[in-house]
């Protein structure tokens, strides 16, 4: 893989070049007044990042995001919350005329999640045509995480806070610019068009990046040590062993059934098809759904295998840590911590996994 250096002052020239071919989304900072109270490390950042269309963003607000954005990037840009997937009967399929998207500010947790989304929408017996068109044409511009939030726990599952694969370009911030990895043929062609901005990365820059990456991993692991999250190899075993545990019930006392966790999740993928009349014709929509919602598994006649809230929480963990481990070989959780931040009931996946582990295997990790 080739790596170049791009000066900070050239970043908008780079964005402009990408935006001439793609609908480019870039991270913008949302300042938050909230401070995380960590006894052991009280200076973890709390600002959020949103992905905004480059064409609609002010240059002053565009930034390099220090960690993942609020949106479940791997999911939200490839399947929309509710979108038309077909007309009925004779109407030919709509050709995708939209400009392909380029996503900047993607982090390694999101890249991990694209494996899950690809498995669902591109794998199996047939491909989802809408997802396929978007995903294949999308340009992924990822970036190292130079920092992390309290809720971040990717390293607990051995997912690095920097990317080694799965991107077109990857940005690693240095003091006066970025190291830019070219990860695909498509990106290589684009790099060829902006040769004047790129200089080959020097050995010192590369080893400097390596040192930064290692330092961040060490810092994150010392943060994660306080959460005692079980190792990824144990996840399937503890959710199966804890099937009849009281933990599911206890943890759901504060759930208000808002569905925040399932809709902010980068690896959740469930949907339902709904038919609605539009413009004199019926259209079929694919809309996000999730197993924490009451009627998710309800069948005709009213029977509902997941009628109690604790069953729905348990179902979600079975899907993530049993089903996906069996079917794809990895857990469907990337450690982004978005579900932890979104939950008004303060239900914390790290805590649940730790409790399941401790109940099964004293002592803790």
């Amino acid at each position, binding site marked *: 893989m080739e790596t170049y250096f791009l000066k900070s002052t050239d970043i908008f020239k780079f964005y402009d070049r990408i935006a001439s071919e793609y609908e480019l989304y870039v991270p913008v900072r949302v300042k938050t007044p909230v401070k995380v109270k960590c006894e052991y490390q009280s200076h973890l950042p709390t600002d959020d990042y949103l992905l905004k269309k480059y064409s609609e963003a002010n240059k002053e607000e565009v930034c390099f995001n220090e960690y993942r954005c609020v949106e479940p990037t791997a999911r939200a840009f490839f399947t929309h919350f509710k979108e038309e*997937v077909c007309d009925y009967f004779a109407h030919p399929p709509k050709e995708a005329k939209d400009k392909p998207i380029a996503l900047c500010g993607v982090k390694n947790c999101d890249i991990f999640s694209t494996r899950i989304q690809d498995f669902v*929408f591109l794998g199996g017996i047939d491909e989802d045509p809408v997802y396929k068109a978007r995903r294949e044409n999308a340009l992924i511009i990822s970036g190292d995480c130079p920092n992390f939030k309290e809720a971040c726990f990717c390293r607990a599952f051995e997912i690095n806070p920097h990317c080694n694969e799965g991107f077109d370009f990857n940005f690693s911030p240095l003091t006066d610019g970025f190291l830019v990895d070219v990860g695909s043929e498509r990106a290589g062609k684009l790099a060829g068009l902006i040769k004047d901005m790129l200089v080959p990365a020097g050995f010192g820059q590369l080893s400097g990046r390596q040192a930064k990456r290692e330092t961040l991993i060490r810092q994150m692991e010392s943060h994660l040590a306080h959460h005692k999250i079980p190792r990824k190899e144990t996840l399937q075993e503890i959710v199966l062993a804890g099937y009849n545990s009281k933990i599911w019930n206890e943890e759901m006392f504060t759930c208000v059934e808002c569905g925040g966790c399932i809709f902010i999740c980068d690896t959740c993928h469930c*949907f339902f*098809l709904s038919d609605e009349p539009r413009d004199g014709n019926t259209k079929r929509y694919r809309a996000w759904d999730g197993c924490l919602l009451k009627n998710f598994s309800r069948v*005709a006649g009213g029977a509902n295998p997941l009628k109690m809230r604790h069953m729905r929480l348990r179902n979600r963990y079975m899907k993530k840590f049993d*089903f996906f481990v069996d079917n794809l070989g990895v857990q469907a959780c990337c450690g982004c911590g978005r579900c932890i931040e979104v939950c008004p009931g303060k239900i914390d996946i790290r805590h649940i996994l730790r409790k399941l582990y401790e109940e099964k295997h004293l002592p803790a990790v």
Partner: protein
Amino acid sequence: MKKNIYRPFEAVVEDIISETPTIKTFVFRPKEPFSFRTGQFIELTVPGIGEAPFTPSSDPNITERFDVTIMKVGRVTELLHGITKGTTLGVRGPYGKGYPLDKFYGKDVLIVGGGVGLAPLRSLLFSLFAGIDKYNKVVLRYGSRTSGDIVYKEAIPEWAKKKKVNLVTTVDVGDPSWKGNVGLVTTILKDLPVDLNNAVAIVCGPPIMMKFVTMKLLDLGFKPEQIYLSMEKSMSCGLGKCGHCRIGKFYACKDGPVFTYEELKDIHDIWD
């Protein structure tokens, strides 16, 4: 042009047969070439309203039309019961794996049905009858709530007369007009004329019935891998994508809807 996996094709309702006060059989003529293997299911679209999954109840060897037997239980089925001949509906599919007929060759095939669960089994029976020489015998045990709830009333006596077929029915609750057996379907599973060492059992009906029939079959000496179950789950896409019909590591739509009990026995709460 690549086909869109979510788009239904048209099928016209040619005939509607009233089976019981709550169950009707709809005869469809598909407008596009369509065939299915017995036990596979389809998604039926009521235009403008939505979809629901059903297993065709007709002979899979007939491709110019197919039957779907539907009980009125929910939103879509209630609307379906209100439609008339000539209505055009949408169809997607077929989906799922269906019954592995080749695994039944040379065997005693026990079929246990409950209520409208006889619908997919009728399609299976047609397939078995069409190749009856390949099977040792067909033993059908069917239970319904009352005599008024029996589906395919005219066909059942005809099936009983066929060669290699042994057929017994029962109703849960008797009435003066009913001269046959009274009791749950499990009560007619005694003294089955099957060789346990060379038999398969196929069960389809409401979850509670499948649970007790499975327990009974295990008691009788059937092995988990000899018992085939049709699992009912909430389904939307039929393609293993939407996530609704998960059973353990399987999706009912893609990996089923027919599973052996061996595949399911270690999974929690399969009967819920």
